């Protein structure tokens, strides 16, 4: 796994933006002032963290439920081992897939090795998305299932030792 050591500046930036960017015309300057470095340093480091993948993106994170995306289904697929990486790449590119991972099977209870999280406004829509994936996988998929959520029991943000 690609680990990048966190610098003291990274930790300060994570801490200062944990609740989000300040809603002020010069947010990076506000952060710089808060953590005691120059605004140029803050912006240069954030840009570098985006390039390295340490920051996935900067922007708005919508609440799925508030936008009406109340049916979230974890679709899981048993895909031939020699095809799973290529097909996983294709599934990840579908607009309605929010996460896509290859994971180990846990036989006999769990034959699935590809996970794709689907978001839709109704279960019918999510099921139709799953049909698109099924068509894409074709004969390389032996079995599949969709696990719908019956409730969020806990959801906390990223936790990093500071």
């Amino acid at each position: 796994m690609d680990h990048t050591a966190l610098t003291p500046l990274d930790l300060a930036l994570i801490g200062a933006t944990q609740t989000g960017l300040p809603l002020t015309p010069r947010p990076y300057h506000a952060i710089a002032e808060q953590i005691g470095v120059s605004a140029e340093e803050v912006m240069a480091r954030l840009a570098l963290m985006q390039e390295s993948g340490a920051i996935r993106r900067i922007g708005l994170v919508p609440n799925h439920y508030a936008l009406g995306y109340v049916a979230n289904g974890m679709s899981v697929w048993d895909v031939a081992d020699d095809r799973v990486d290529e097909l996983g790449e294709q599934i990840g590119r579908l607009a309605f897939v929010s996460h896509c991972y290859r994971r180990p099977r846990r036989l006999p209870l769990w034959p699935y090795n590809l996970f794709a999280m689907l978001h839709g406004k109704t279960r019918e829509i999510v099921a139709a998305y799953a049909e698109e994936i099924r068509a894409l996988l074709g004969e390389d998929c032996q079995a599949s299932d969709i696990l719908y959520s019956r409730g969020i029991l806990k959801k906390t943000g990223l936790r990093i030792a500071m």
Partner: protein
Amino acid sequence: MAGGRRGQAHRKTSASKPIAARAPAQLDAIDRNILNRLQGGFPVCERPFLAVASTVGLEEDELIKRIGRLLEAGVLTRFGPLFNADRMGGANVLAAMSLPEADFDRIAAFVNAQPEIAHNYRREHALNLWFVGAAETPEKVESTFRYIESVSGYLVYRFPKEREFFVELKLEA
């Protein structure tokens, strides 16, 4: 490990009750435009709001106010950088348990009470409890899972990611 590493392990919590889902919010055309255009790519520059305000047909101060309002209304859970925990030396592992209905609430609350458990969902399957263990190291996540197994008496099925495929989620508002 099972010898009472944490005294609060059996503390009663209401954590197994689902977090209330919000009703779909009332959004106007400008809100939708903001939501559809600014889920990623917020610029890193001196006046980033100014840089993107015109793309959503607003002045800088109006855009700032709108984002603040969307946050307050709960339409947004967050606005800012999304850090990738895996790239920062942390560890995230998906896991699941198969719990009988009679034990579900009790064990789900116990799992939730562990500070290393970040997300926890009830799902419709024989594996009906799905959660994410998150800590500074993979060893710490693993010891949390072992602790949960030891105290609960149920197996924790680990589903570590072997490969992550690129996704770009844009929820249309």
